[in-house]
């Protein structure tokens, strides 16, 4: 039985061209970009070229890109960096209830340190309202951090509108774009964000690399201390092969963006229409209009997520229930709780399919059928 991987929102396969780049860089540009000799200079040259490509992908300047170890570090740097740099300006932070834990747990830590955090609610489609942001804004608000596209249900948030709103306010505006990057065209000037987080392994790049965009002039305290790398914003010898491979993945994802979106929309339609024809009792969670094309979160009535996921795995289908879970912890998805409330059935019967590189329409037909078989067996 061939395994079908539909968990690209968790992590994605590395593109062959990216692997090639990674290996070549390790072989040829092993130098330390900070070294004064030719070996170091070669590495530095390659690093700068890659940085330019990353910056261009979001309409930014190369100096505005801070390399990190991934999305989590980018989020942490943005949040702690802003909070500590702007402590004297105010004490209030606005975020939402559906952020990734890299944002939520960072905010909770700041709360323990005495910051005041507002967690904005969402509607049943997983979107925050611009009105709520307006209401929550205070004179002492120093940071607004709202994700661009949600990783569990795919709901796209009104970032441009918030950016517009904040033109009249001094708060720093951060968006976690980890899940949206590579699928939505992003321009930091159009979105009017000051900080933005991106990860490589979600877009067929290697794990352990990402970046944070920092608009010129945005105040931020470094969170890592040591060498002078990244203009003292993030110490540590640069992950040169990682950055170069990441840049390669970015180029590929930028070139294929339009094609991918069309294809994934077709995937969604195929799955949904298969289940409709098979007469399954299901509902799609998320926003129909404002949605990431590669995420399909579905609630199958009368099933239990634990049995469902294990059965699908045994049927050769890799999917997930949103955030990765630990030791039998079924902490219901905080995103679904925010959308439907703590007692909703959706918390117990929702799973996420996410599409990406290498998935074919044939795979999707097969996946929809395998899901149908399992759901029918479990519901009875």
């Amino acid at each position, binding site marked *: 039985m061939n395994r079908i991987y539909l968990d690209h929102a968790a992590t994605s396969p590395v593109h062959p061209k990216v692997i090639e780049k990674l290996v070549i860089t390790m072989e040829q540009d092993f130098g330390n970009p900070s070294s004064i000799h030719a070996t170091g200079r070669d590495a530095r040259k390659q690093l700068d070229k890659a940085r330019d490509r990353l910056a261009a992908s979001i309409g930014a300047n190369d100096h505005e890109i801070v390399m990190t170890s991934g999305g989590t570090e980018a989020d942490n740097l943005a949040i702690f960096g802003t909070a500590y740099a702007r402590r004297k300006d105010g004490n209030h932070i606005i975020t939402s209830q559906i952020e990734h834990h890299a944002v939520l747990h960072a905010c909770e830590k700041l709360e323990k340190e005495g910051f005041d955090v507002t967690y904005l609610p969402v509607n049943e489609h997983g979107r925050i309202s611009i009105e709520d942001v307006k209401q929550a804004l205070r004179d002492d608000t120093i940071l607004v951090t709202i994700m661009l596209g949600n990783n569990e249900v795919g709901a796209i948030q009104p970032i441009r509108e918030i950016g517009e709103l904040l033109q009249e306010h001094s708060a720093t505006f951060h968006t976690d774009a980890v899940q949206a990057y590579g699928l939505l065209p992003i321009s930091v000037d159009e979105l009017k964000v000051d900080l933005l987080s991106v990860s490589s392994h979600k877009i067929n790049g290697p794990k352990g690399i990402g970046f944070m965009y920092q608009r010129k002039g945005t105040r931020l305290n470094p969170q890592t201390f040591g060498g002078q790398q990244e203009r003292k914003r993030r110490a540590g010898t640069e992950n040169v092969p990682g950055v170069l491979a990441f840049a390669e993945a970015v180029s590929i994802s930028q070139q294929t963006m339009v094609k991918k979106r069309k294809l994934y929309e077709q995937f969604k339609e195929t799955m949904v229409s298969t289940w409709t024809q098979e007469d399954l009792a299901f509902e799609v969670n998320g926003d129909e209009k404002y949605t990431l094309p590669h995420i399909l979160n579905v609630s199958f009535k009368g099933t239990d997520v*634990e*049995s469902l*996921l*294990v*059965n699908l*795995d*045994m049927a050769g289908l890799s999917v997930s229930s949103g955030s990765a*879970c*630990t*030791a*039998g*912890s*079924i902490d219901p998805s905080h995103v679904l709780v925010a959308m439907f409330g703590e007692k909703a059935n959706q918390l117990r019967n929702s799973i996420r399919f996410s599409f990406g590189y290498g998935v074919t329409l044939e795979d999707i037909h097969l996946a929809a059928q395998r899901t149908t078989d399992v759901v029918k067996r*479990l519901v009875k």
Partner: protein
Amino acid sequence: MQQLKSPAETRVVVGMSGGVDSSVAAHLLKQQGYDVIGIFMKNWDDTDENGVCTATEDYDDVIKVCNQIGIPYYAVNFEKQYWDKVFTYFLEEYKAGRTPNPDVMCNKEIKFKAFLEHAISLGADYLATGHYAQVKEVNGETQLLRGHDNNKDQTYFLNQLSQDQLSKVMFPIGHLEKKLVREIATEAGLATAAKKDSTGICFIGERNFKEFLSQYLPAQPGEMVTMDGVKMGRHDGLMYYTIGQRQGLGIGGAGDPWFVLGKNLESNELLVGQNIHHEALFSDQLTAVNMSFTTNTPKAKTFSCTAKFRYRQADIKVDVELTENDGAIITFAEPVRAITPGQAVVLYDGEVCLGGGTIDEVMKHGKKLTYVG
């Protein structure tokens, strides 16, 4: 056990705790060619203020072992069911002045019920665990037999399993001695080979029992008195003591050590006495409730067999008379010390575990010992 399918076609879910016993159980089944799946069951959340949870560490061990054996692994959460079916019962029994046995209840309601159903929903033919017990098919029925390692036999905790449950169960290490189980784990290089065995009640673990219980039940301190009414000091709350207990009474002075003889719930007095063989600790008969049998074969109204009144106790010859509403009157061939209401009475015919019930009342010379609950 009907073995119509070949091992390769037989799917077995192994309940894996992260300990050596269930690790070896999974390892042996895999070696025998079964389609094995390891599942970790989380019943209790003991996450402390530092975010540390023993379940996380145990699950890490399950992952390591399953990868070593080469089987898929998953986790399942029964915290709610455990709370409703086991922990609530546990607290109710303490409130009623008895000493409950949550492990018996957990096997009956969680491991071999909710978990078994989960295994079946995953297409499993059998559920296997690392218990020291054995099952054997005799005349179309599955018998529950003591574990080969007498010192480790766990049928005491499995006495409430029904024929229906037992017919879907495998105990892959029940025929082995504990020492050999460790040796197999070491030889196979399993990550849990040298892991310490867990002790105590699973959800309390190594923690202080008094402290744990006091979080859930209000303690009512009271007087500690002898059978003649002589005050010997104060107790911290009757629920903290069990019949026959020696430790923790804090009665000083010369002479023999002191023991808990009983409890007076009405006056909130703890009855104590000197001498480990104090005559008040001995009884010759008990009544049991919730009697359950491991086979469907009808039982005679009266029969003779052997019984255990606590884990690891030597068997005692008894006469059993079954009464209405799944009750029983059990008479001992010799006086037995410190029979404790709330604990299980488990019946055996040779190596076969017949079933058992919960000890309700304790008698001597036909009179109820009111002071033991």
